[in-house]
């Protein structure tokens, strides 16, 4: 765990993980940005300006640090709705995220056709997702199969929650990748909740990573609140995939600080005490404290960073709010490809 292990030990852990100080600062900045977008998006839904949101609060360390382990220019990401942090690392701008949130014509994720936080951006190598979770898992194996057949030196990483791991497509996608030793990393964020259903009702074995053994490749569980642990595990998995060693399953245990979505009320199935206790585990202040003690950050630079991030989000909201909606007459376009 990251808490209070002191500057010296942190610097050891940093070098063990393969990150340098600048990387750690970059990861922290993206974590802050993901949190700011998530919080602002939630507020926009409360104000009725945006109609739907899926908060990623609590998951930033896992999403940002895992994506940071990819060759973001050449590798593929198959995301799910809570992968905002990974989208930012992959190159989606805050403005583009907000165009998606507002359903505007210039949204690169589908020109306003997709619900908010349903990512897919071809130019950035982000494979489109729908709302039917788990379908992405064999899709990722297929993207990786094509990379292998074409001799394309790319790794595919697919993000999903532990709930999706109950879908049959999880089994089918991992089995295929194992047989063909495909360059793919299955990245499961296990936050313990699939909307209101706890992980002990998904499976009698809540540790998802154990299933990898059944498909003949490595599985590892890491503390998803610790960006260094996530980065280190994913870096190894990506290196294995890239060198022809086949797939890996990385499970990052995380927390879900907010409801499943803006349409959910988590107080129907969680207690305020439980939520307050979970908030104590928030990866952001913990990582900040570590960076402060390692002198990679000070109070002043932290505040400047937060101000810059807030400003970036505010101006993106303004930009997206003012951008045009898709023309109604375009609703029939693009049912079939030419």
């Amino acid at each position, binding site marked *: 765990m990251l808490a209070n292990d002191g500057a010296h030990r942190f610097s050891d852990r940093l070098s063990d993980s393969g990150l340098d100080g600048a990387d750690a600062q970059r990861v922290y900045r993206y974590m802050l940005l993901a949190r700011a977008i998530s919080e602002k998006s939630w507020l926009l839904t409360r104000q009725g300006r945006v109609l739907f949101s899926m908060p990623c609060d609590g998951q930033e360390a896992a999403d940002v640090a895992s994506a940071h382990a990819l060759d973001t220019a050449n590798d*593929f990401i*198959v995301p799910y709705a809570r992968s905002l942090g990974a989208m930012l690392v992959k190159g989606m701008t805050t403005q583009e995220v907000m165009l998606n949130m507002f359903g505007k014509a210039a949204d*690169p*994720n*589908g*020109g*306003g*056709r*997709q619900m908010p936080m*349903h990512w*897919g*951006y*071809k130019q950035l190598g982000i*494979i*489109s997702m*729908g709302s*039917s979770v788990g*379908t992405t*898992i*064999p*899709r*990722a*194996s*297929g*993207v*990786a*199969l*094509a*990379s292998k*057949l*074409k001799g*394309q030196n790319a790794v595919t990483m697919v993000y999903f929650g532990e709930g999706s791991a109950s879908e*049959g*497509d999880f*089994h*089918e*996608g991992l*089995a*295929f990748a194992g*047989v063909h030793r495909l360059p793919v990393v299955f990245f499961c964020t296990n936050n313990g909740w699939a909307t209101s259903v706890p992980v002990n009702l998904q499976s009698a074995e809540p540790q998802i990573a154990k299933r990898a053994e059944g498909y003949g490749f490595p599985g590892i569980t890491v503390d998803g609140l610790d960006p260094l642990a996530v980065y280190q595990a994913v870096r190894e998995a990506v290196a294995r995939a890239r060198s022809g060693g086949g797939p890996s399953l990385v499970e990052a245990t995380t927390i879900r600080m907010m409801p499943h979505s803006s349409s959910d009320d988590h107080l129907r199935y969680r207690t305020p005490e439980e939520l307050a206790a979970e908030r104590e585990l928030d990866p952001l202040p913990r990582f900040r404290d570590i960076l402060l003690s390692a002198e990679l950050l000070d109070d002043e630079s932290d505040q400047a960073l937060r101000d810059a991030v807030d400003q970036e989000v505010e101006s993106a909201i303004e930009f997206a709010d003012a951008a045009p909606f898709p023309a109604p007459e375009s609703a029939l*376009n*693009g*049912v*079939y*490809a*030419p």
Partner: protein
Amino acid sequence: MGEMRLIEAVRQGLREELAADSSVFLIGQDIGVNGGVFRVTDGLLDEFGPERVIDSPLAESGMVGVAIGAAMNGLRPVVEVQFADFIFPAFNQIVSEAARMYYRTNGDYSVPIVIRAPYGGGVRGGLYHSQSVEAYFAHVPGLKVVVPSNPHDAKGLLKAAIRDNNPVLFFEHKLAYNTVQGDVPEGNYTVPIGKAAVRREGQQLSLISYGLSVHHCLEAAETLAAEGISCEVVDLRSVSPLDTETLLESVKKTGRVCIVHEDNLTGGVGAEVAAIVAKDAFEYLDAPVQRVAALDVPSFPYSPTLEDALLPGPPDIISAARELAAY
């Protein structure tokens, strides 16, 4: 030109496309060393190797999901679902993902995949090796659905399907594989998806069909001609998109229409054709629109007496046509 069976035409189409385009690969159960349970892919593993003729795990959803991903990364997969009856585990991948990928990404990602599956009854295959499933998919915008009736079209439509940038469902009647023969040109030709063909010219009545049922219509038309009833036979070839122009032209000429398919009646392709005719050729009609289809039971049962009681064939078409002609 060479005379060949429908199964050979499909194989030739696959072989030519594999040879011509390195982005084409096959995936399915038993399609490798076994050459497919019907032997459609016989010899292709030896010719093209295990990277391009992939024996899939027994997992239809995964197989189609993998194909979608490979297509989104630049390849043109051709999936074989062993029997159309087993396509349902992949329904979500086909309908929720492949069909709407181009639409939902506003034209950024297309999914050029072909999903081939043998369909149809009359082979004593029972409830799970006999179904016609085209209507489920014809309902879905973003999919194309093709059902060839003869070797020439099977090869030409398959090549068109593989080159198409959309997901195409390609249904081959398993009884037609070895019973329907015909001339197939050498080499490179395609049959356009969405174009029907008039198989027999006639004046009094239009029989509109697709797949193996076209042959039942032709047989019935021969008998009816001897009785002085002149039937036109329209082979839709594609059930989505429908060639409304050709079918309406025929109906406007004859004024009487009977739609024939082996799929069961309710909600079938015949219902869609009937609605199109009712709307756009109403004033040309001299009789109500007729449909000859399988009766509404879940699928064809195994015992011969039961299957034969349900399978539509030439006698059903003949009696429907006589009624129409006498109306």
